[in-house]
């Protein structure tokens, strides 16, 4: 008995690694959907986009790279789906070198489905450095600061930028990030211009972001993969988030199971030792 209890407390990490790999990979081959409840934070962001009038201009920060692609790509895809479905104009802006290209690919892939055209309905401002100073200059004069899109077209001549001069013309600011870039957006755009702002962030960053949601600086928040799944449910488009969330569910269950087993075994061993029996 004691040997079993000892084993449950000291399971070899390689065994855990193998199990984790199995439970993460398996759901990708079995297509199923579990009922998900939509959190208030996610619903608020969805409702905010729903409330925007057609043709409003949205700035979408895409500050993520391959490292957080698992969570950030479903966020970006779901948001672009929603923006296009609502016939909103939008601009992509990246402070991560990979974000520019990754988001561009998503927008290019989705544009045909919604009859969108780059330069007419959406634009990619490209990758920029030094977020703080860039946004400081961006707020008062968007066209003068960005100057051209990623293809080198003068921004002022693009149809998508019609009537857009400064940050006051932005109807909604969104940031999809795996880091704290949203803090800088809040400091230099959301706060000074009283913009509505939404955020899609990774699970590890979400607890910090709830602070901003509570303070009213964010109108809504998509937290991690769970948030992406919730957003896809709201849109009625089960995508990458829904698929990957099954793996996330399984991995969480594995951790919870082993934590419980380890603790249960520890408590039982203590009792056995206290009783002095079965040793």
């Amino acid at each position, binding site marked *: 008995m004691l040997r079993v209890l000892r084993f449950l407390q000291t399971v070899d990490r390689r065994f855990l690694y193998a199990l984790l790999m199995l439970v993460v990979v398996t759901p990708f081959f079995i297509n199923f959907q579990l*009922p998900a*409840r939509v959190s208030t934070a996610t619903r608020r962001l969805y409702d905010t986009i729903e409330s925007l009038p057609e043709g409003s201009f949205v700035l979408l920060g895409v500050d993520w790279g391959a*490292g957080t692609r698992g969570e950030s790509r479903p966020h970006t895809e779901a948001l672009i789906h929603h923006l296009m479905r609502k016939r909103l104009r939008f601009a992509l802006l990246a402070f991560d070198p990979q974000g520019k290209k990754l988001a561009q690919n998503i927008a290019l892939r989705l544009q045909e489905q919604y009859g969108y055209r780059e330069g007419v309905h959406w634009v990619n401002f490209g990758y920029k450095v030094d977020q703080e*100073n860039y946004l400081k200059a961006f707020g*008062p004069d968007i066209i003068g600061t960005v100057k051209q899109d990623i293809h080198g077209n003068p921004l002022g001549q693009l149809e998508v930028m019609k009537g857009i001069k400064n940050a006051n013309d932005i109807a909604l600011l969104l940031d999809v990030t795996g880091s704290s870039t949203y803090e800088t957006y809040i400091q230099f755009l959301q706060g000074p211009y009283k913009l509505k702002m939404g955020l899609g962030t990774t699970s590890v960053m979400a607890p910090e972001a709830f602070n901003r949601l509570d303070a009213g600086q964010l109108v809504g928040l998509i937290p991690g993969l769970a948030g992406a799944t919730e957003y896809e449910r709201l849109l009625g488009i089960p995508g990458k988030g829904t698929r990957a969330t099954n793996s996330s569910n399984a991995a969480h269950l594995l951790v919870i199971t082993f934590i419980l087993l380890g603790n249960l075994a520890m408590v039982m061993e203590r009792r056995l030792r206290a009783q002095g029996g079965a040793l």
Partner: protein
Amino acid sequence: MFTPKTGAAWWGFVIGSLVLSAILVAVLQAVPQRFRRPIILTATFIGGLFYALEFFLPVAPMPTPQDPNRMGNFLTPYVVPFADTLPVIAGFTVGLGVINLFLLHGRRILKGATGWTNSLVFFIAFFLMLTFGILDKTAPEGSIPKNIYYLLQEGAYQALDATMFSIIAFYIVSAAYRAFRVRSLEATMLLITAMVVMLGQITVGQMLTNWLPEQSESFWGNFRVEVMRDWILTKANTPAVRAINFGLGVGSLAVALRIWLGLERGSYFDSQR
């Protein structure tokens, strides 16, 4: 001067900047050691002063819907050109890093030291990305250099980046399994909190308390796992994060002031004395 340049003007500015930078570095190298500190401190102070003045000078700081033409004060148009010096300086530090890596790995290969093959991989990767990264800018769509760059960037670099990040999951599982043990009251509280948040994050966890009524309908709805998770995140976690952020903000301000005014000790110059 601070407008995008194209063609010959672009090349002229790039070569001119490089020559100017080389002269500046050479002059700084020639300056006696005792004068270097005041030069750096003065440059730091002027840099900080620019941003302080730009921020605090109260002349039409932001455009408004009523007056969209307000463009800040007379320093605001120079914020971006001034900030452009940062990537330039960062470029020099990267250059310094590259030289160090070359010296280190070059020595390893020449000596045939243990792991010299890894050093060789560094050189191959470096020159491959450098070459095809530059060629990608000018090569036409569908050309071989463009495809090779695509393979290196999307096929190798991004996949490796994602893999490195994904590996963390394995360590988290192993660490969580070993760390979350009910050894003390604090550890037990941590374990319970973690379990509630984890269960609240996943659909299966939420299904465990689906039989309870909605929060709006009954008191017992407060015990639904997703409601408890939300309470932990917004009521317990948020004040703690906010307190930490206040501390960080005050600390950052103090450090910034010390650096700006040249009061910071233990810096590079102190060790040079």
